[in-house]
C-alpha cells in the first residue's frame, strides 16, 4: 500500500490527472459497476470518495456473508484483507 501511495504521489507531480493510474490489483474493475462520477438514478451505490474504513467494513462483511448482497458476496471473496485495504484506500482517494 505504501508503494501504491508513493506511485500516486509521484504521478500527481508528473501528470495533472491520475484517475485510472496505479490502481492496486482489482481496484480499477470496481468502476465497471460503481460510477466514479456518481450518476443519478442508478441503484448501485456510489463508493468512490467514500471513507476507506466503510469500504473495508462492507467488503469484509460481504466476504463473510454477513451483509445482504446480490453480487458483492461473490466478488469480495476474491480478495484478501491486504488487497481490500489497498483497494479501499485507492477508491477512497478517487475524485
Amino acid at each position: 500500500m505504501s508503494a501504491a501511495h508513493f506511485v500516486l504521489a509521484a504521478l500527481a507531480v508528473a501528470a495533472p490527472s491520475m484517475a485510472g493510474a496505479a490502481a492496486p490489483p482489482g481496484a480499477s474493475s470496481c468502476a465497471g459497476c460503481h460510477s466514479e462520477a456518481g450518476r443519478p438514478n442508478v441503484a448501485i451505490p456510489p463508493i468512490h470518495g467514500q471513507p476507506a474504513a466503510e469500504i473495508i467494513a462492507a467488503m469484509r462483511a460481504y466476504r463473510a456473508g454477513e451483509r445482504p448482497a446480490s453480487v458483492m458476496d461473490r466478488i469480495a471473496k476474491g480478495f484478501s484483507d491486504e488487497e481490500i485495504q489497498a483497494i479501499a484506500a485507492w477508491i477512497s482517494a478517487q475524485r
Partner: protein
Amino acid sequence: MAGAAASALVRPALAQGRAKVVVVGGGFGGATCARALRRAGLDVTLVEAEATYMACPFSNAVIAGLRGLEELRFGYGALRREGVAVVHQAAVAVEVESRRVVLADGAGVPYDRLVLAPGIDLRFDALPGYDARGAETLPHAWKAGAQTELLRRQLDAMEDGGTVVVSVPANPYRCPPGPYERASLIAHYLKTRKPRSKLILLDSKDSFSKQRLFQAAWASLYPGLLEHVPLSAGGAVTAVDAAERTLSTDFGDHRASVANVIPPQQAGRIARVAGVSDRSGWCPIDPVTFESRLRPGIHVIGDAAIGGAIPKSAFAANAEAKVCAEAVAGLLRDEAPAAPKLINTCYSLVAPDYGISIAGVYRPAGDLFADVEGAGGTSPLDAPLSVRALEARYAEDWFRIITADVFG
C-alpha cells in the same frame, strides 16, 4: 520477458517528448484504454473505422422489441475533449519494424507501443453455406447495428405459429451467455405477441454459462415454447441453406420461419494481419501486461485476446483496458508492472424483469488468467423473484454506468 521487451522499446524520443500510443478499435476495450492512457499523460491516437459505436449489450432487448437500437449508439466526443486524437479510418496494416500503423488512405501513424482492440470477425468460412451473403437472409446479429435490425424486422414480420431457430457455436466466442439471453428474450416476445410460435435453440455444446439458472427460468416462463437441443442430442449445426432457411445437423434438418445463425468467430482482421493471432484465430498475451506473446510492443485486449478463464465480454474488455493502460504507461517509464487482478460480471435478462448474473475474479497464472478459487459464481438458483427483478435493474444500471465510463 515483459521487462526486457520494455527496455528494448524505449526510444530516445521518449526522453524528449511524450510517448506515443496508438489504439486500434474504439469499442469497450479500445475506447477505455485510449482514455486511460491519455489520463496517464500519454500522447494517444485512437483509430476507429466507424463514426459512432453501436454497443452489443442490450441488443438482445432490441431484437425482442424492448428497446430502441439508437439507445445503444455512443460517440467519441468526450474522448476528443480529453485530448485523444480520434481518427475515423480502418487500420489496414502494422509495420512492425518501423512501428507504424497503416490506415486505409495510406497514411502511417507512428507508435512507441500499440494496443489492438479490434473485437471479433465472424468466420464466413467455417459453416458450409453461411457467408456474408447468407447473413443477409439468416442474420447473425452478433455485431450490433443493421444485423440487429434485420433480425428484429424478420421476427416482426413472422406469422404467429412460426418456428424460430437460433444456432450457437462451440467455445470460445463473444459473450458466452449471450445466445441464451437472446433465446430467452425472443421467447418472451413470442409468448407475449405470437404465442403459437416456437423457438428451437440448436447448440454445439452440452453445457453453457448460467445453464441451470436459464433452464429453471425457461421451465417456469416458457414451457413448451423454447426447446434447447444440446450437442449430444444433435444440436451442432453442420451446414445451412440460406435460400431454404434450413439448418442441417447430423440428426436431421430444421426448417425455420426465422433463423439466427451465430457462427464461429476469430480475432478481428487487423490482429491477424499484424501477426499477433495464433492458429486458433485468437491472440495469446502476457496476462500481466496484455503484451502479445508473438510480437513485443503490441498489446491485445478485449474479445480478440485469449483470456483463459476470463470470458469475452464488454465488462472484461473495459477491465482489461484499464490494466493494460497502466502496464503500457509503466513500461514506457521502464517500470515492470505488478500482477493485476480483474473482475468480470455478465448480467443476462431472461425476461424484462428477470435478471441473472455470473461473476468471476481472475489472476494471472502462467500464460493465462485463472479463476481466484472460492470467488465468483452465479446468482443463487433458489432466489425469489424480487432478487431477479433487482438484478434486472442492476443490469440496466451496469450498462448506463459502464457506457458512461467508456464514452461519457
